[in-house]
């Protein structure tokens, strides 16, 4: 079953003061996300990630195309009872406390009395601001507001959670907590759709990712597939190289980088057999520190594709 489906979703904004002209923020986005997936929605700033999330939350209306969440059109009230949403850099009501805000939002889902209070207390503890529950939100730091934002997105035990840059503004401890929370949601069977431009987060958390550039989908697939596709060589780190061996290697290999303490990183092309070189090195008294397949990281992939795509298009992985 699909948790999220977008079908040729397109959004134009009118820009300019006097002579309005359309600016395409999102172009023909078709995407399926299955129930239970942790789906990363990646792209540089201005790629169209937040626009997509706003379309899914019906904060803006599409110029063309349509979107469904849990097989219901976006905007459907019954469907909204089953989802949660964390906006980018969330902001709330200055004069409410964190506890009052969550009670307010819980009330919108029909929770009352002790059930509501218990739910609010549990969530505030889970996101680590249980002690600050009675502090007005205007006194909260950006990171604390982000935690409140995560708590309010989960107030109704949602089946699908939309998180717009969930880890931004958090300190390292907060990032770890938020990552653990996303993994816990996944383990509980929730679908998590999150946008980010921090690619290591997606590498850690996502089962699949989509990459947007200039409003267009440029890649979509499993991270494992992206890595497999991008393995392009081997890196050997060795120590105790004799000067003559080092000289010989320099002549034969393309790239040798000194690291430290007489350690060197040797790069081999994908087609080279690292076993033969390794034998030779050990026979000549060198010591192996590590042997690693060189994969293009998601970050490299991201930079390369986004930079290369002057006319972004969908790429099959």
């Amino acid at each position: 079953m699909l948790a999220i489906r977008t079908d040729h979703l397109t959004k134009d904004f009118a820009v300019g003061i006097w002579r309005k002209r359309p600016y395409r923020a999102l172009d023909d986005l078709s995407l399926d996300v299955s129930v239970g997936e942790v789906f990363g929605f990646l792209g540089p700033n201005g790629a169209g990630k937040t626009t997509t999330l706003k379309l899914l939350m019906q904060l803006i209306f599409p110029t063309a195309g349509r979107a469904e969440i849990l097989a219901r059109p976006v905007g459907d009230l019954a469907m909204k009872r089953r989802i949660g949403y964390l906006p980018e850099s969330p902001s709330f009501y200055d004069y409410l406390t964190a506890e009052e805000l969550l009670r307010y939002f819980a009330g919108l889902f029909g929770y009352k009395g002790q059930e509501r209070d218990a739910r609010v207390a549990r969530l505030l503890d889970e996101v680590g601001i249980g002690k600050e529950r009675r502090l007005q939100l205007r006194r909260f730091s950006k990171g604390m507001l982000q935690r409140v934002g995560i708590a309010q997105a989960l107030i109704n035990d949602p089946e699908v959670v939309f998180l717009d840059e969930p880890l931004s503004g958090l300190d390292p401890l907060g990032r770890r907590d938020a990552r653990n929370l996303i993994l816990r949601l996944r383990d509980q069977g929730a679908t998590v759709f999150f946008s980010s431009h921090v690619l290591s987060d997606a590498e850690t958390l996502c089962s699949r990712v989509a990459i947007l550039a200039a409003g267009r989908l440029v890649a979509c697939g499993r991270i494992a597939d992206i890595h497999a596709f991008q393995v392009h060589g081997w890196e050997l780190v060795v120590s105790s190289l004799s000067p003559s061996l080092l000289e010989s290697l320099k002549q034969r290999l393309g790239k040798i980088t000194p690291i430290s303490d007489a350690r060197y990183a040797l790069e081999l092309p994908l087609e080279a057999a690292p076993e033969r070189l390794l034998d030779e090195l050990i026979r000549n008294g060198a010591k192996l520190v590590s042997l690693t397949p060189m994969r293009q990281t998601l970050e490299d992939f991201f930079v390369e594709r986004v930079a290369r795509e002057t006319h972004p298009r969908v790429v099959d992985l």
Partner: protein
Amino acid sequence: MRQVVLAIAVNVFKESVRDKVLYNLVFFAVLLTAASYLIGQLTAGQDIKIIKDLGLAATSIFGLFIAVFIGIGLVSKEVEKRSIYSLLAKPIRRGDFIIGKYLGLVLTLLVNVTVMTIALYAVLGYIALMAGGWMLPGWERPAVDPVLLTAIALIFLQLMIITAIALFFSTFSTPVLSAALTCGLYVVGHFNADLKNFENVIDSRPAIYTARTLYYLLPNLAPLDVKDQVVHGVPVSWEYVLLNAGYAVLYITALMMAAVLIFSRRDFK
């Protein structure tokens, strides 16, 4: 009433109270106390009338400030701060949001007007007590006159219309422009009756039709101002009050429907 509308209204009230909106009541109390003391020193026999006048005028003006300056921010502040994003992702209709916001501010105004009314009656009671009677010779009406409530009820209706106007503009305009337009309509609303009789002044048919259209479109606030009648003991009938209440309800309903319609189609960029 839908539970979500009530929740939104209560939240507006809570925010307004915490945002020190009710501090205006302190100014009101100080103004009335100081004025009654000074007027008591300067006038003979007219002090009750002046205090009533001043109290009703202050209730109207203080209420107007709240209605305009909170009303214009009800929607725009939420959009500007982006707090609306989390809210509209919850199972609420955009119409619920607008109606809840409106009722929340009306509740704030109700508390304000109620407290100001109590303060006004307290000052009037104190003056009567010092003067030695509730109804002295030379006074047209008793000091603690229940008829004042008629004027206050109509002032409240006027404030409800102004709140609806401010909210309507804030669904699509900037706070500054909304404030200017609302204040403009408040002023125009007090001279609206002149538009009805435009044909007595001018012959041009298009001008007359335009004036007549504007008469029906613009708020007619002058009939909701009966301060002078009440203070001078001129009776205001229940029929008059009910008729004007009906007008206010219709006008507010039309404004709210327009506000909901505009807001329901708005993109939050």
